């Protein structure tokens, strides 16, 4: 009789979510470790100031874990997390506008990052970051979910409570505008 193969694959998100709901803190930590970097990339792409990125990532996870009962598995956990991140970023933008600490649109342009890295960033990339700020929130989110995160339209539509057709239209509008800006 052959020995069973050792189980090497990671537990799926749903399993970790259930474990967290049962009080397993390690499961929550594993979910953070699994999704923090893509979330940070998404937030940075959407205009989050680099100096605030850590806090925004944390806040997104806190909101997600507190509202995890509302997650019905209509999309992937990461996709759901990214949409929460979009809301966290929007709230941050409002707070910043009220307190005038740092306008949201200065985040990607300058921020508190290494000046050398900013110098290395290509002009096209900077233009793209600037162009994304000119899009509507929905267009920006659809574009980032599709182009940056590589999601299918069905997945994007489920996360943003729209239809795949509408998501496709938003993406193409975004691409058209960004092409104009970047060129």
């Amino acid at each position, binding site marked *: 009789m052959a020995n069973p193969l050792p189980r090497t694959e990671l537990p799926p998100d749903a399993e970790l979510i259930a474990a967290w709901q049962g009080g397993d803190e390690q499961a929550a930590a594993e979910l953070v470790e699994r999704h923090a970097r893509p979330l940070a990339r998404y*937030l940075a792409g959407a205009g989050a100031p680099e100096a605030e990125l850590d806090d925004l990532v944390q806040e997104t996870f806190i909101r997600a874990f507190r509202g995890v009962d509302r997650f019905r598995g209509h999309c992937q956990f990461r996709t759901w997390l990214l949409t929460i991140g979009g809301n966290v970023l929007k709230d941050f933008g409002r707070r910043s506008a009220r307190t005038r600490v740092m306008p949201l649109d200065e985040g990607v342009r300058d921020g508190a990052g290494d000046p050398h890295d900013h110098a290395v960033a290509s002009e096209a990339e900077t233009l793209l970051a600037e162009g994304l700020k000119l899009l509507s929130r929905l267009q920006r989110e659809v574009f980032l979910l599709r182009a940056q995160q590589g999601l299918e339209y069905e997945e994007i539509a489920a996360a943003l409570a729209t239809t795949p057709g509408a998501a496709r239209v938003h993406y193409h509008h975004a691409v058209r505008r960004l092409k104009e800006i*970047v060129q």
Partner: protein
Amino acid sequence: MTEERLNELARKLGTRAAERVDVEATARRVVERLREQPVRRPIWVQATWLRIAAAVVILVGGAFTLRQIWPGATPDDHVTYFIADDLGDLSTDELRTLLTSFDQIIAESVVPDSTSDLQELDAQQLRELLREG
């Protein structure tokens, strides 16, 4: 600028900033914050049920109170009001007839045997009986 080039740029967007995020430290802080401020779902549920119960009590109590104080809330009240208002104009026979009808309509269960004694009452006693009823 092609769409492919745009997507390529988008995939790079935010990569450097994200690499600076200390994932393990973030996980530790998130868990600490969740521990310090746990989800208070049971209390929320309890508060919600209390609100619903309070709303039901207010609605039922309000409806009961309105029913008690609203003039003419029932047909019986209408009958009583009009009878009492015009008692002074009625003769003894009319009062007996009225009282009999009144008993048939609304008070058969309350004063079932009263009609047998009506013949022995005078007009004043009938008026008093009607007013009390």
